[in-house]
């Protein structure tokens, strides 16, 4: 779960990390009032979960109220890489002489956290990592000890941070690590960490991703989750408790188990179709979950056909079939064609229950995917044809 910039900065500031003065605004008037209060120049920053906001026009630096009004008006309501901007952060513009990068992430190969510091802040750190790996000092941290002060210093001095601010940067890195550990973060970074002419350091941006599996013990962050979800359908998936990712294609996909669902997506692509989503109903799903899953996929207006692929282990074919019947029997007309493939536990019982008037049944994964791709292409072609 990724926090918005303003949320992450709130968490950082509460922990004592210096951040610029800022206020959240959801109307142009609010934005101008906030800018007036903070004092110019200010930055007006779209609060959406996409990378490269600046390049895409989601961040503007303004010098007076008039410019603030113009910028807020332009940014609020804009569509940024598919996401609607409904809030901006109005933030004090910081005069800086240097931009650093500091971050903490999980090194999954080592099974332990790694802290990173670089004097090449303010740019895409992934690019720095790819082109000049030496420019990033990395320090692995024993997750049980937690980051020791010497480790923070090692990373900071190792990265070549100026001695005048090294002590403060080390201390901020220590605080960030402690936050990372205490708040069940998976990734946390400040880029840039700005250095001012007076050797002050200040977090000009803030990224914080939280481990979704740990939200049960981070109730305040869990409350931020709905707000952070970028898309209406993704918000709905949160509500239903599905692992769901929305994509650009038109073949809706429902399955059980992450690997099998991914494989179904890949096969859709392999057979010339385009997946509309990833939707894992999880292990042991009951009829209601199946109904909810179909509801989700039908709600996606891009979807032209659905493939429902279940290999039962703890999930039972009869439960799945019941759920499909319940979902579809409520419609006068099935909104989009559904192809079903059932295998594994109680697949035979499921096949007996399944109302085959409402769905197309296929025996294998490959056949089911090909059929759904064909349906989607037909319908898309028909739509195009109709409008032509």
């Amino acid at each position, binding site marked *: 779960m990724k926090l918005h910039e303003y949320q992450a900065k709130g968490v950082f500031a509460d922990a004592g990390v210096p951040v610029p003065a800022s206020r959240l605004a959801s109307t142009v008037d609010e934005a101008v009032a906030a800018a007036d209060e903070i004092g110019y120049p200010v930055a007006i920053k779209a609060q959406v979960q996409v990378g490269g906001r600046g390049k895409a026009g989601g961040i503007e630096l303004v010098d007076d109220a008039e410019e603030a009004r113009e910028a807020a008006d332009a940014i609020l309501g804009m569509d940024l890489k598919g996401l609607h901007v409904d809030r901006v952060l109005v933030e004090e513009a910081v005069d800086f002489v240097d931009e650093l990068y500091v971050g903490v992430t999980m090194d999954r190969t080592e099974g332990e956290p790694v802290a990173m510091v670089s004097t090449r802040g303010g740019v895409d750190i992934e690019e720095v990592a790819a082109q000049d790996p030496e420019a990033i000092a990395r320090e692995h941290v024993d997750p049980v000890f937690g980051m020791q002060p010497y480790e923070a210093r090692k990373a900071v001095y190792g990265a070549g941070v100026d001695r005048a601010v090294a002590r403060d940067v080390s201390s901020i890195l220590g605080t960030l690590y402690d936050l990372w550990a205490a708040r069940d973060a998976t990734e946390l970074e400040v880029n840039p960490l700005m250095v001012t002419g007076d050797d002050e350091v200040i977090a000009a941006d803030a990224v914080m991703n939280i481990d979704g599996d740990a939200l049960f013990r981070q109730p305040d962050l869990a409350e931020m989750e709905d707000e952070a979800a970028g898309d209406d359908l993704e918000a709905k998936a949160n509500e239903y408790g599905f692992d769901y990712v929305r994509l650009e294609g038109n073949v809706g996909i429902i399955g059980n188990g992450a690997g099998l669902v*991914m*494989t179904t997506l*890949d*096969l859709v692509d392999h057979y010339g179709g385009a997946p509309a989503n990833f939707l894992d109903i999880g292990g042991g799903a009951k009829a209601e979950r199946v109904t909810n899953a179909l509801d989700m996929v039908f709600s996606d207006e891009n979807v032209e056909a659905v493939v429902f692929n279940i290999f039962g282990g703890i999930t039972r074919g009869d439960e799945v079939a019941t759920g499909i019947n319940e979902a579809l029997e409520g419609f006068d007309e099935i909104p989009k064609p559904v192809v079903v493939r059932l295998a*594994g536990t109680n697949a035979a019982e499921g096949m007996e229950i399944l109302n085959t008037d409402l769905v197309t049944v296929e025996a294998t994964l490959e056949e089911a995917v090909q059929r759904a791709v064909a349906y989607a292409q037909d319908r898309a072609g028909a739509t195009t044809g109709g409008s032509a």
Partner: protein
Amino acid sequence: MSILVDADSRVLVQGITGGEGTFHTRQMVEYGTNVVAGAVPGKGGQEVDGIPVYDTVGAAAREEDADTSVVFVPPAFAADALLEALDARLDLVVAITEGIPQQDMSRVYRKLRETDTTLIGPNCPGVITPGEAKLGILPGNIFSAGEVGLVSRSGTLTYQVVDNLTQRGIGQTTAVGIGGDPIIGTDFVGILERFEADTRTKAVVMCGEIGGEDEEEAARFISEYMDTPVAGFIAGRTAPPGKRMGHAGAIVSGGGAGTAQSKIDALNDAGVPVGDTPEEVVDHIEDVL
């Protein structure tokens, strides 16, 4: 011979009195697994289908001479259960639990490295040696004894591939679900080296997915140390960067690390054919048997 588990393994179940624990213990026993004890704090002295329950893993292991544990403890308490299993110096611990916080697993992993215990999982379907014993939640009926080892990060994808193998008359020595989390006890290499050392295993199927660098490491290992032929499958070719595809571990980073293509390339470079579909993987295996 088989890897990790056989009919002689003495198995204890942590969380045996919970719904899932009881259900799958029955399934395991039915399959022939030698379940000798359960461990649930406060439930010591009870029995589940005649299997004695102890308050601590240490007591269960000591009294019933258990060497293997299967863990069905809910995620909030699972790390403690795993540490308890490590403390009891079991040979093998299989963690079925899904949804253990990453930082809990990071600490468990730290302790694991100080022990001689093999941990499989978490967030895995378990381990099965067809016809002998199964640990976890795998549906026993789709497996058949034979000569192919299987290792996978995913549960249902494993079933899919095993089903394809079995339908084509190809049996398995042992199948291992290593789990879909970012931090797991035993990685591909840990299982591949066991298959390589196992004289009964004539070929190996390895099912990877996006995220991390486990498949790339496996490719290096295969190229350097393995004579046994391997066929691969990688799920997640169509996954966009930055989105978690169900498994906590199945995520391509914003920087592009962990893509399916990088894994497929690495495996191909190591001489491992990678199927575009599960059926193609079985074709590759048929070719080498």
